[in-house]
């Protein structure tokens, strides 16, 4: 009796959990959290008739694990630069047919040029958002012009520095400050960067990602490392803040639309990318989310002149020239970076 009952219970549990999967969709989209104006999804559905299932991820690594293991099948996803490269190498993506994505012409040529660092022929990916990593500082708490990463390693600001809690960004900054590539796989260079970051640990208030915004707005620290899009939002809230991309160079990042190799509905996926590359849609997205758009046609449509010419959103070539994209480090390279970062955090 007991066994029978538990069988019934378990099977009813299973049936319940499967019941949710009955509905079918034409397009499965996997994007970063808070990375789209949600009304755009509806607009797309109305215009094209494709029914969209829209899911969000928090980290490239989460997304990668799901795609790689085959636990979920998505048609179109939005990974970052180095992740695009990794996925191309592992055969997880398929080549785009630009004939079906005519709006790709709206994306600035220089962004496609930068993308060649991780997608050499621009065959697999179309940039969606981009930005830089730099220093955001409080002009009232810092009384010298800041233009170098040396500021975040300066004894003067002890206890007033917020460091970014991210393996690639954290080590990348140290490598750049030392004059190396932020994709370095040279053990000696990484060791040097690790030692520098260990020494820095006594100076920093802590390692954060999302909390940096609140802390800088609340005058909790003088200097922080953060992304350009975030920086702009902080400055809008607290005019004492300023953002700079240090002279030693920094990271220039981009998130890109790609189509997976096992996509079921390629046509719908192409329509999706094409739709998002349309100037009015890209503009709407930019205004809602606040990350720089690579869409030149959308850029030209920005009404507010101050925003259109904003150096943080759209840094000139002299800034982007000294920045470097992340590339995929390979399994061994990733391990080397993880080990180095753990050493810093555990120091």
């Amino acid at each position: 009796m007991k066994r029978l009952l538990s069988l019934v219970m378990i099977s009813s549990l299973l049936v319940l959990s499967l019941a949710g999967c009955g509905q079918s969709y034409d397009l499965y989209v996997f994007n970063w959290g808070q990375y789209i104006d949600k009304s755009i999804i509806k607009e797309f559905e109305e215009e094209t008739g494709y029914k969209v299932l829209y899911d969000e991820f928090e980290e490239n690594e989460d997304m990668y694990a799901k795609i790689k293991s085959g636990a979920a099948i998505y048609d179109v996803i939005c990974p970052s630069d180095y992740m695009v490269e990794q996925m191309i190498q592992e055969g997880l993506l398929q080549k785009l047919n630009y004939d079906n994505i005519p709006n790709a012409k709206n994306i600035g040529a220089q962004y496609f040029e930068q993308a060649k660092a991780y997608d050499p022929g621009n065959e697999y990916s179309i940039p969606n958002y981009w930005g830089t990593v730099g220093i955001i500082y409080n002009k009232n708490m810092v009384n010298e012009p800041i233009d170098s990463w040396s500021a975040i390693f300066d004894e003067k600001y002890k206890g007033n520095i917020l460091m970014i809690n991210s393996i690639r960004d954290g080590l990348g900054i140290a490598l750049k400050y030392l004059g190396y590539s932020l994709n370095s796989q040279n053990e000696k260079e990484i060791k040097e960067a690790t030692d520098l970051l260990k020494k820095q640990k006594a100076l920093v208030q802590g390692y954060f990602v999302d909390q940096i915004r609140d802390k800088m707005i609340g005058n909790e620290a003088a200097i922080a490392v953060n992304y350009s899009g975030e920086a702009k939002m902080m400055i809008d809230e607290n005019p004492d803040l300023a953002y700079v991309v240090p002279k030693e160079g920094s990271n220039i990042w981009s998130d890109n639309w790609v189509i997976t190799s096992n996509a079921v509905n390629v046509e719908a996926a192409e329509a999706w990318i094409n739709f998002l590359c349309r100037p009015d849609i890209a503009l709407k997205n930019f205004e809602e989310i606040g990350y720089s758009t690579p869409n030149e046609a959308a850029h030209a449509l920005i009404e507010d002149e101050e925003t259109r010419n904003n150096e943080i959103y759209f840094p000139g070539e002299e800034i982007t020239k000294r920045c470097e994209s992340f590339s995929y480090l390979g399994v061994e390279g990733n391990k080397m970076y993880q080990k180095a970062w753990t050493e810093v955090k555990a120091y």
Partner: protein
Amino acid sequence: MNNKKRFFAVPYVVWMTAFIIIPLLIVVYYGLTNVDGKFTMENILAMFTPINMKALVYSLLLSFISTVICLLLAYPLAMILRNADLKSSSFIIFIFILPMWMNFLLRTISWQTLLENNGVLNTILSALHLPKQHIINTPYAIVLGMVYNFLPFMVLPIYNTLVKIDDNVINAARDLGANSYQTFSKITWPLSLPGVISGITMVFVPSLTTFVISDLLGGGKVHLIGNVIEQEFKFKYDWNMGSGLSLVLMVFVLISMAFVTKYDKDMEGTNVW
């Protein structure tokens, strides 16, 4: 009758199997295999690398300190509650449990706001012309967070055993000439020991394994063993290593459980839950 009892146990058994036993077995499986699914002890032995050992020892230290502070705060309070009349003691307990109805994360985040350099505490201090305290992002903040969050788990079991002590036992001791100190050390303390032990476990185990408190109040600068395991799962994507380290940590949890069953045979202290 027996059949009826079994019938009511079914949902519980299903629940236990699906959400406790099976996940635990998965952790054991991951902990003892490598990426290719082959048996290995590497994940277990990884605990003994200097970095992980340091985190473990530090976690043990901080949770030990928090447990001692909790005990020192909780015991006198439980004594007061025992001697108070029923109406006021249940009111005090109500006040004590009230914050626990709020989400744990929310309470910890509010400590962040309180302790921050320009936070509520320092604003008050500077208004009183007292020196500012830099507590946030230090180990002190983490201990504070642990004590704050886990104190009720110490108070309630101790209170529970204390109220069960018959007044006549204490009166008899006094009649026979024991002074207050002797009454406490010979009667009250030994009789309350089961509650103390389960209180200690209920504070020590969650403190040892926490990663949220150290993340939120330690600013990512203090690396506890909970953070090490969290990182294995979240950033390095090494489920095998994370599970292996969790298994080692489970040993400490089991040791504490063994302590409780040894001293708290009637489960008096834990009864409250």
